[in-house]
């Protein structure tokens, strides 16, 4: 039985050139200009982190157009058509703060595969937007605090993940652009890669998403049918990609880089099913509702996390990621943060805590027995079957399926498979209301969620598992000729709502009666 889930990324790369005089004063700049992510560049994602795809900058004077039929007919590659092999430079001649440093003399620097030695500190890093991260690297040209001895004409720019060999030396992206950097100056060439995530807003899936055609239904036809008709919603909750620090180094935070297609540490890649169906129902961060308006923001799923740590807290190769930078973890798993067992908390109220006593004085039917969690509901509890309790179920580790031949047009796809095996089954009495895809930190064993999804029960409705509270009635027409009325809901509900009121005046109508209007409208 197969489930297919999907997340997608749109890649947008841009170059920018800033030119400075010997005093470090900006004398010319360009807008960000779009690049062309090559067919080989798209395929690099199978093997490289996004952040590693532009570790090296190469410059050229060629003017041929980019390769790439649209769509390409094969796994085409592209690169500079005429690389610049020599940039005459006066080395170590620039000091932004004042007098020049010791001049080492002239040197001819290569314009190909310019790497970390030319990174401009502070010109590299990551910025997280509401729809995905932007990665940056900047190179000083010429590097080593030099300035140009001659005008440098550039007609083509290229970035690549590597410098040579059979993989990585070709262009990740290339753009034709005529730029002349005058003699006596130096420049900063920046590259920006935006990863626009396609699933940061709530996505829904309907019945039929689970392919059950090959299932053995001899003994569990009803159980298989439940999966076949299951519907729900999901969201990518964090980008889950490797970061770039301020000096241009790619590194993996404690949350892992699970969402990189190149990620191979799949022992840390897990799905888990949870009985929880309410942790984010009244608060996008989980737990109690902090205000009336916060409840309206909640859609049942963990929000998409955006975090932009202060600049100085970016990883610097010598310290770990500061503790202040953290993601929500272990969602829908534990009874408490200190618990080691994997039983999700169950709430009857998200007001402040599990133990909060909500006002049930007017609730005749629902009481503390009514914890919100996934249950067998109307299908009934089977006392003849084993009872495993309200526990989560963790999948096997994932593996990336072969992607040979997956090149289609301007898109690439990687399929990662996880399984829930019969031996892991928690029986018929444990039910699941949510599914989380998470990075399991191998040291702390904490699960950092990347995709959060919630199931709808067999009613098929997207019912937020909390009540609304009636605080009044707004009359758009007060009626006429009626002395006394009762009001109730249609259909009738179990709650005791059958209240008396009067209506008037006797003739005409009174619309938007201010006495009722005063309690506010919807």
């Amino acid at each position: 039985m197969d489930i297919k889930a999907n997340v997608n990324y749109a890649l947008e790369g841009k170059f920018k050139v800033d030119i400075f005089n010997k005093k470090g004063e900006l004398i010319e700049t360009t807008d960000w200009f779009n690049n062309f992510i090559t067919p080989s560049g798209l395929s690099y994602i199978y093997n490289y982190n996004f952040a590693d795809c532009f570790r090296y900058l190469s410059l050229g004077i060629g003017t041929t157009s980019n390769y790439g039929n649209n769509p390409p007919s094969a796994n085409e590659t592209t690169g500079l058509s005429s690389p610049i092999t020599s940039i005459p430079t006066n080395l170590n001649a620039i000091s932004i703060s004042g007098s020049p440093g010791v001049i080492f003399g002239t040197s001819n620097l290569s314009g190909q595969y310019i790497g970390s030695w030319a990174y401009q500190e502070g010109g590299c890093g990551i910025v997280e937007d509401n729809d995905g991260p932007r990665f940056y690297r900047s190179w000083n040209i010429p590097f080593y605090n030099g300035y140009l001895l001659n005008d440098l004409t550039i007609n083509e720019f290229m970035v690549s993940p590597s410098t040579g060999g059979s993989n990585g030396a070709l262009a990740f992206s290339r753009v034709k652009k005529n730029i002349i950097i005058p003699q006596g100056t130096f420049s900063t060439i920046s590259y920006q890669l935006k990863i626009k995530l396609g699933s940061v807003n709530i996505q829904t899936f309907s019945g039929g998403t689970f392919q059950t055609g090959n299932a053995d239904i001899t003994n569990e036809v009803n159980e298989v049918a439940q999966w076949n008709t299951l519907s729900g919603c999901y969201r990518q909750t964090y980008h889950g990609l490797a970061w770039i620090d301020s000096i241009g180094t790619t590194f993996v935070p404690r949350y892992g880089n699970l969402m990189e297609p190149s990620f191979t540490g799949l022992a840390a890649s897990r799905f888990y099913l949870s009985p929880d169906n309410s942790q984010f129902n009244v608060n996008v961060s989980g737990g109690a509702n902090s205000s009336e308006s916060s409840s309206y923001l909640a859609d049942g799923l963990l929000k998409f996390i955006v975090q932009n740590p202060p600049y100085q807290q970016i990883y610097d190769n010598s310290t770990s990621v500061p503790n202040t930078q953290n993601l929500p973890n272990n969602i829908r798993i534990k009874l408490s943060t200190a618990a080691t067992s994997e039983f999700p908390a169950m709430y009857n109220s998200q007001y402040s805590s599990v133990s909060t006593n909500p006002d049930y004085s007017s609730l005749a039917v629902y009481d503390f027995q009514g914890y919100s969690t996934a249950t067998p509901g109307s299908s009934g509890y089977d006392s003849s079957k084993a009872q495993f309790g309200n526990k989560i179920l963790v999948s096997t580790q994932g593996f990336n399926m072969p992607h040979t031949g997956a090149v289609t047009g301007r898109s690439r796809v990687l399929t990662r498979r996880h399984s829930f095996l019969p031996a892991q089954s928690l029986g018929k009495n444990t039910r699941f209301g949510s599914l989380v895809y998470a990075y399991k930190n191998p040291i702390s064993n904490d699960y950092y969620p990347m995709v959060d999804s919630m199931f709808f029960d067999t009613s098929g409705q997207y019912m937020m598992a909390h009540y609304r509270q009636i605080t009044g009635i707004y009359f758009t027409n007060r009626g006429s000729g009626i002395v006394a009325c009762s009001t109730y809901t249609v259909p009738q509900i179990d709650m005791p709502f059958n209240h008396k009121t009067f209506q008037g005046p006797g003739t005409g109508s009174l619309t938007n009666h201010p006495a009722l209007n005063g309690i506010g409208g919807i």
Partner: protein
Amino acid sequence: MAYYSNELTGVSMLSGVGLGGISYTGSTGVVNLFGSGYSGGYGQVYGIYWNTSANPAFGLAADGTGITSSPGITGTIYYPRPSPFGSGISLKFLVTAFSGSVGGVSIALTGDQLIGINSGTAPGSGYILPSGYFIHQESFVLLPNYANPTSQIYQSLGTPYSYTPAAGGFYPSMLNDNIVNINLEITWSGASGDALNC
């Protein structure tokens, strides 16, 4: 939330049944709608009031010579999200127990009756159903899945399982005879835009 007397004195239907008027005596709590101004007739007239500003509710006022006490319908009201029933919950109004004299014509209604049934005995301009909608806010009270959970909490408390008859939807369980595979597809693309052949 207090009423304003000028809003209530305009309720002509009330005076039409022989009540001598409406007095407004309070600004908070139960409002005496029919105090000393009562002058005759008999009937059952309902008022509407706030019991507290923080916990508004609609209530039933008493009949007779004065309305001074709470009708006892207080508190807040909870209802499930109405989405399965359409865009909202509609209101129905019933004429409630009432007897009175309007323009010399006696009216006697007992119990909750649909308005249309008795409209012939009522005076005035005829009947027009009121219309409106509920005002609501998001509650912190969670909606259960209509059954007790299969909970380790109950185990720890030593409480035996007591699975009450279920009435609502249900969620899936894992399977004993089948593998469930989850295929996560990660797709990416780069639009060529105007950079392809530039």
